[in-house]
């Protein structure tokens, strides 16, 4: 008599993968909201485009791979990839750029490796890096709706003028003539604070940021800090909900803080950015809390996570300061992903009742 017995345990926890993914998206919302408030509808357009494309692509690939569509689509993993990718994209990117990036992320970054759980690299960052290498110009200039080209009183990025500018930037074919588009693009281009600090006007910018910062004023200059604080809050929510462990964000932020403190020489000409600029002037927070913590491609043991975070932190700082790319989160995270399997293999915790952690090649005593 053979009976299909269920193995214990019969009781299970409440948290499920699809809910977990939704919680990650929910934790992104403060940052996205603040970003929209400061930079206009560009982020939302990016996210919407990416989500739609990701769902369609995911469905197509699952069909090609002969997987159950409903079951696999409902794990919401493509949704998270798309949202993170949309956030990472510069607002005002043209639609084809977003589509190309998310297609690379889902097709190559995720399904070419065997789908959810098998991808060695963070898919969203794969897509982002693909764009960064292929379209460096579009990827390093941020277009933010402003009153630079429209002569309007009480201009708001969230007003209809702002919406029109954002739409024009994302969908240039909507414009009546090419000249309008060109004017919009040229007129609204701006650099991220880090680019500014790297390329020009270092002293001026840093002094301004260090001294009298209108933190809560609504200007695209201070928007960065607020956006980062938004993602920090979201990250704290994830930590509170125990969806991510503290090891990765703490070690990344700690490493960046430490390095920027060590390397900062006030008043000297070889300024490489204040700690404040490094933590809040770019995508450090979203990178530390949302992107590097993507569990599939990160290290899994606690010690491994700390080393993984340190590797990413050092890479972020090194690439920003001495490398040629400024937005270094994507490259740093992918570099961390490279190391993750090795870290998993070597940095194993000491098992209960054992003197030390199991090592590779260690002969077990038998009998």
């Amino acid at each position, binding site marked *: 008599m053979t009976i299909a017995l269920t193995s214990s345990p*019969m009781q299970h926890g409440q948290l499920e993968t699809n809910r977990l993914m939704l919680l990650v998206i929910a934790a992104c919302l403060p940052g996205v909201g603040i970003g929209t408030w400061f930079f206009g509808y560009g982020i939302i357009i990016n996210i919407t485009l990416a989500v739609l494309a990701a769902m369609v692509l995911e469905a197509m690939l699952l069909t090609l791979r002969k997987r159950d569509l409903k079951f696999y689509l409902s794990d919401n993993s493509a949704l998270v990839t798309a949202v993170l990718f949309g956030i990472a994209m510069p607002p005002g990117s043209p639609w084809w750029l977003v589509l190309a990036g998310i297609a690379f992320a889902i097709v190559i970054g995720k399904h070419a490796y065997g789908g959810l759980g098998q991808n060695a690299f963070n898919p969203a960052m794969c897509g982002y890096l693909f764009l960064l290498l292929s379209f460096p110009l579009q990827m390093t200039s941020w277009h933010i709706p402003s009153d630079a080209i429209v002569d309007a009183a009480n201009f708001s990025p969230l007003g209809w003028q702002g919406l029109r500018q954002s739409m024009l930037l994302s969908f240039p074919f909507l414009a009546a003539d090419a000249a309008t588009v060109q004017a919009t693009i040229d007129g609204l281009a701006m650099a991220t604070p880090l680019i500014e600090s790297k390329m020009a006007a270092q002293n001026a910018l840093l002094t301004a940021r260090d001294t009298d910062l209108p933190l809560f004023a609504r200007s695209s200059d201070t928007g960065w800090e607020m956006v980062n604080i938004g993602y920090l809050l979201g990250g704290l929510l994830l930590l509170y909900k125990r969806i991510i462990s503290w090891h990765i964000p703490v070690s990344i932020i700690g490493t960046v803080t430490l390095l920027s403190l060590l390397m900062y020489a006030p008043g000297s000409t070889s300024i490489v950015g204040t700690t404040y600029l490094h933590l809040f002037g770019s995508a450090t927070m979203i990178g530390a809390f949302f992107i590097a913590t993507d569990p599939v491609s990160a290290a899994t043991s606690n010690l491994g996570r700390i080393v993984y975070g340190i590797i990413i932190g050092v890479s972020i700082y090194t690439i920003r300061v001495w490398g040629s790319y400024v937005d270094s989160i994507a490259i740093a995270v992918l570099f961390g992903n490279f190391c993750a399997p090795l870290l998993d293999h070597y940095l194993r915790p000491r098992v209960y009742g054992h003197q030390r952690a199991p090592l590779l090649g260690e002969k077990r005593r038998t009998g």
Partner: protein
Amino acid sequence: MNQLQHSRKIARKLRAHRIFGGIKPLALKARSLRSRIMPTPIPEMLILPLLQHQGSPAAPIVNVGDQVLKYQLLAAAEGPLSVPVHAPTSGEIAAITDAPVPGHGKQSQRCILLRADGVDNAIGLLLLPDHRALSHWQLLERVNAAGICGLGGAGFPTAEKLRSSIERGIELLIINGAECEPYISADEALIRERAAAVVSGAEILQSICLADRCVIAIEQDKHDALKQLRHSLESSSVELLELPTKYPIGGEKQIIQAVTGLEVPHDALPMDIGVLVQNAGTAYAVHDAITEGKPCISRITTLTGTPLQTPKNFEALIGTPVSFMFELCGIEESRHTGSIMGGSLMGLELVRTDVPLIKTSNCLIAKSRAEFPEAKPEQACIRCGFCATACPARLLPQQLYAYSRNQNLEQLEQLNLADCIECGACDYVCPSHIPLVQYYRASKQAISSRDQQRQLSAHWQRRFQFHQYRLKKEADGLQEEERAHRIAPEAAHQARGFSRDKARQEIAAAVERVATRRRNTIASSRESD
């Protein structure tokens, strides 16, 4: 680490320590704790398996048709790891046959079927003088005769555990009342209502195993039980330790870590570090056996689950069918979808309810669809690491899972799969519904069957080598023998300093001597004539 160092550590470190990992599942114990412990009525037929413990089965000493009395010995221990079985009530031995029993292993086992006569006549119990006057070997003998095995669920023969502990020398006896698993409230109810007996059992156990200290460890959310225990412990040397509420703090290795801060080495037993753990229920059974002379014929068992109208704790006779127990609680058959023996995290699923309650059954859960929905399909592992955080052995369940899927047994051994206690914490927290424990169980079996195969192979190889050696020796031996036949006389002669020429000369000399003598004789006779 030697014993002395350990004992120093134990003496120093006795407080609630952190254990690795752990989870906090919904306990759901209150519903069975609303009423007091009830004795069960006597069922019509009792099924008494001969193997209710770890080890070898007991041997029946009664025959079919015999009339037996309550407490009478039905099957005697046979071999070192065996415990006897006694009659829970009076009646007639209906059969000694194979019957279904709970367990993953064999679905049926040798059992004694006892048809109760309902009179419940007992044999006279041998009332003891004060147990304090007895030596610990005498006490141990009584524990052995009472048929007690670990009542917490593992079922290791208690007397055997005590005996080997005495030999090793024990510093600390831990009475495990943690009962961390959801749904089970048997020990809590027992301590709440019979704390004095549990404490007395603990003292007896301490006097048997000669431990320096004895600690009753109990989770801190069991308020009533704690209150009663504190009261009973006022005039006792037994200590009380409150543990944090966390699953699986009641596991043997975990409770040792929680109480002493020490880990049991992976290749050793708790007694090797001077610690002995006994369940609170076992302590109670020992108390009964020593002070009242009662063998182990009943135990406290929790009956719970939403299909039961009145979940409660029973003092149930061993051998009572599970279905009979469920009916006592007013089971709604329409909602009943399955049964679990044990807790919801480590218990085993019962495929039928006509199996008996045995000495290790601390809980019976009637499942309902609402409470225990069907297992959800397995999703992809997203390596979230929740499992590693929950693992009380600090393994890496997610890596073990990956290697289990590939059946990479070498890597699984290297990751210390053998240290997995199958507590199910990883499985509980897994957001992708992966039945991790089942993977580990299958892999453990694959490893052990591979090891068996390897042993066989090595054995065959040795025999083949010997076979070849024998053939060679035989062939060599034949040649040797032939040569020996040819040259043996020669060699023997040589050994004695023999040569043909010399022999010939000697023969000639002898012949000459004889001839001379004869001649002389003839000559002398002629002279005499």
